[in-house]
């Protein structure tokens, strides 16, 4: 345990400020590239995860015995640290965008399945009975009753998954991606260059909060009834 590999740095070095416009102006190209990569990885991962997770949740809500195994498997997977997952995926799939995406999708999947399933389970049985009594078939029941009523749960899952994915993208720098994560590492390796590290960190948090806000707005658009209820 005698490895004191982390160096101490003087707390106030005028050449190494916490924030610098100079840095942002001179590096707008690499910042732009990091932003693009970060957004692309996040959006792709969430889109793929949602496309798998929502149907999976629907199946799990219909087939009772499937719900248990799906939830416990997702729990076990969630216990695995991200770096360890990429350590298994990296050598297998190489340093490709596939590796980064597979890891991100796996974690996002869990949050979405879990919450979508909770949402689907909370659809009142009476409402479904009434719909069936009115002559709704299985497809209509799904599209017009189950999914709209489970939307708050699905949206919560998407929000949690998106915010964690934005943070998790930084870890994909171990397989040569990482968006702003790579910027943080570069800053760290260039003599603890603070403006770069600080800016990339703030960019990550801002990006996560922006995505979250967009999803909240999407929810308002998709669920006008929840807005009306709050207004009364």
């Amino acid at each position, binding site marked *: *345990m005698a490895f004191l590999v*982390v160096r101490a740095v003087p707390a106030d070095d005028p050449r190494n400020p916490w924030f610098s416009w100079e840095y942002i102006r001179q590096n707008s190209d690499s910042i732009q590239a990091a932003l693009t990569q970060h957004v692309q990885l996040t959006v792709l991962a969430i889109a793929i995860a949602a496309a798998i997770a929502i149907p999976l949740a629907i199946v799990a809500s219909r087939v009772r015995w499937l719900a248990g195994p799906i939830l416990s498997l997702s729990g076990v997977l969630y216990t695995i640290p991200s770096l360890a997952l990429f350590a298994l995926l990296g050598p297998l799939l190489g340093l490709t965008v596939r590796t980064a995406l597979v890891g991100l999708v796996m974690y996002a999947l869990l949050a979405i399945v879990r919450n979508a399933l*909770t949402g689907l389970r909370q659809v009142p049985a009476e409402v479904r009975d009434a719909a069936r009594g009115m002559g709704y078939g299985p497809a209509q029941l799904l599209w017009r009753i189950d999914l709209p009523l489970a939307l708050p749960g699905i949206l919560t899952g998407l*929000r949690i998954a998106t915010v964690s994915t934005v943070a998790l993208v930084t870890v994909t720098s171990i397989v040569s991606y990482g968006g702003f994560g790579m910027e943080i590492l570069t800053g760290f390796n260039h003599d603890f260059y603070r403006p770069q590290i600080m800016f990339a*960190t703030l960019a*990550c948090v801002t990006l996560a909060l922006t995505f979250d806000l967009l999803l909240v707005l999407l929810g308002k658009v998709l669920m006008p009834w929840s807005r009306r209820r709050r207004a009364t």
Partner: protein
Amino acid sequence: MNIGRILSDAMTWLNDPLNWTNPDGILARAAEHLFISVCALALAFVIAVPIGVVLGHTGKGGGFIVALANLTLAIPTMALLTLFVVAGFGAGYPPIILALTVFGIPPLLSNAYLGMREVDPDVRDAARGMGLSGAQVVGRVELPLAVPYILSGFRTAAVQIVATATLAAFVNGGGLGMIISRGFGLGLDSGGGQVVAGGLIVIVLCLTLEGVLALAQRALTPRALRQGVRRMPSSAADRVDASAAAAKP
């Protein structure tokens, strides 16, 4: 690369005794990993549980706890680790331990808060009616009833911190993640086996810890309270949700 070759490389690496006993081998790294984690967990517990108990007793600060949990979800672990190291919180382990503490606090805080809030108001009223003071209500009634929640928070935080400690490798901060990052540093052709071996060790450690703590939690929870912990539905975003409080390491 094919799975067979990678796995056999990993097994070869794991079978070399020197990789276990080297000064920066598996055993030393595991000791380092656990040392960092235990310090962070103890610190997070000492900070978060008293605050959670007080806030839960008074019923204030629920919004603050949700906001804090959401914020830590949005801050990348690796960013905080880097910032703390660069901020010069001393050399060596302290910045790493502090960063991990930050990620251990939300599950402990929200569970302690939730445990205190979930105490049946009738029980609290009865205690007040019997003439117990505020501090006595906390010490003799609320806190004992909140134990299952606090244990659950401890388990989540412990697994969270041990998992997150892997990321200390990004800032050369030690722990088992170093085996993985060094392997990547060698390039996947020669270091691939080491990378996979490191990943497997970390996964085994985390799953074992989760299992052991689940058993310990069961054993430590008073029998009368075992049915008491209801899992909060994670879609209840506006409530303090104990399960969503953990950021993904």
